[in-house]
């Protein structure tokens, strides 16, 4: 029974994934290529521009790995969050098929964004590695764990944002300024170690700042002092995930179809 349910869900999510690719990128092969290229087209010029206008070292750290590990999670957050706005309404027609739940629709989209982001992460790393701007992360398992937490955070946040946007149009309005402010306070530009004590303790309540700490700890190893706490992060993200799932479940009740 459970296994059959799982099979159905896997098929449905697969079908949604393919449908999402078709409807977003068209049916030509360039569409699939664009899925991978899209984050790169954003990331590479931005990273090179920063590289050009700033010192190659920041607080004694090489700038490129720092920006790279900061910017790719930002892309994921903005893509997942931005796409989640009003996603239930936009996909209402899919909900006519009772096998398709909003969780499947969300999962299909999220998998596509995560897949695109991870590919961009890999390709951009390869580019920077080849031109000698980056080295392999010092502590790979730690880096993976940090990036895993980052993906988890983006997924949980997207669920919450997507579900709330169905209830109030304010969420859509606030999203734009919020996603810019997020650049500032998320941990993209800083390590907790650079902050004064009071601010540092406050920042470390944020699960995404935690994830950034763990990612940076993975990249730079013992050359930097990081404050990531994997247990706290997992705990905070689990709470946000439960909240997101509950809000999505509730959002279904608010849905009005044509």
């Amino acid at each position, binding site marked *: 029974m459970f296994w059959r349910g799982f099979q159905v869900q896997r*098929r449905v999510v697969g*079908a949604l994934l*393919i449908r999402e690719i078709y409807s977003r990128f068209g*049916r030509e092969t360039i569409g699939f290529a664009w899925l991978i290229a899209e984050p790169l087209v954003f990331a590479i010029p931005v990273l090179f521009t920063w590289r050009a206008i700033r010192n190659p070292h920041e607080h004694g750290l090489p700038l490129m790995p720092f920006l790279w590990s900061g910017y790719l999670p930002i892309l994921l957050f903005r893509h997942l969050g931005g796409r989640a706005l009003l996603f239930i309404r936009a996909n209402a*027609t899919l909900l*006519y*098929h009772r096998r398709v739940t909003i969780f499947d629709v969300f999962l299909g989209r999220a998998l596509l964004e995560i897949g695109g982001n991870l590919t961009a992460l890999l390709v951009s790393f390869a580019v920077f590695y080849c031109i000698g701007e980056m080295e392999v992360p010092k502590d790979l398992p730690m880096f993976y764990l940090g990036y895993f937490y980052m993906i988890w955070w983006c997924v949980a946040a997207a669920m919450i944002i997507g579900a709330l946007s169905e209830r109030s149009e304010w969420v859509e309005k606030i999203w734009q300024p919020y996603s810019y402010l997020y650049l500032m306070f998320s941990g993209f530009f800083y390590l907790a170690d650079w902050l004064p004590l009071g601010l540092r303790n406050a920042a470390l309540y944020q699960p995404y700042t935690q994830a950034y700490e763990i990612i940076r700890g993975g990249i730079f190893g013992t050359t930097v002092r990081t404050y990531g706490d994997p247990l706290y992060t997992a705990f905070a993200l689990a709470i946000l995930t439960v909240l997101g799932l509950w809000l999505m479940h509730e959002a279904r009740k608010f849905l009005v*179809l*044509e």
Partner: protein
Amino acid sequence: MISAVDITKDYWTEGRVHRVLSNVSLTVGRGEKVALLGRNGSGKSTLIRLLGRVELPTSGIVEQTMSVSWPIGWAGGVHPILTGNDNMRFIARIYDKPFDELKAYVEDFAELGKFLSEPLRTYSAGMRARFVFALSLAIDFDCYLIDEVMAAGDQRFQRRSHEELFEKRADRSMIVASHVAEIVKSYCSRALILHRGRSKMFTDLDLAFDIYNDL
């Protein structure tokens, strides 16, 4: 069997509660065909969407022991940006039906020819209805939920769809929202009249139509 027990459905419009259905109950057994009658806005489509579990009732429950189609109507279930073929692929995947089989059936039944490789948004309302109708018939359901769409297409299509739906699938259940007395009287055994959120079941279809015409 599909059954709606004591269903109430509210919508919020501009901060006010609008009760579309109030304590409506309906049970349809295997092979039974039931009509929904009511004026525009009386809640026929809402009831069909609730039975199809597309929307959730404010209170009350919907339960079923047979497979139920998605609500077959003018809207819903297909994606306007995707082509007819891609929509068919999607439906084939989620309902686990071989694509070739589904395509052959839809091609034959909807008679859309080369339009199947065009996006659905380029279809006329009639073509779209024919497409959705053909798609849903290509998947095997115990119970079909049909919302108005019976009037779609030209005479030839109507004749063929009656044949497919009421003759070849005479053993299936159907819940049909329709204004067409001819269809209801020749195929349905009961009619549920919806008016101002209330409902009443009639087994005498002539009486049901007399009342419906006076609403």
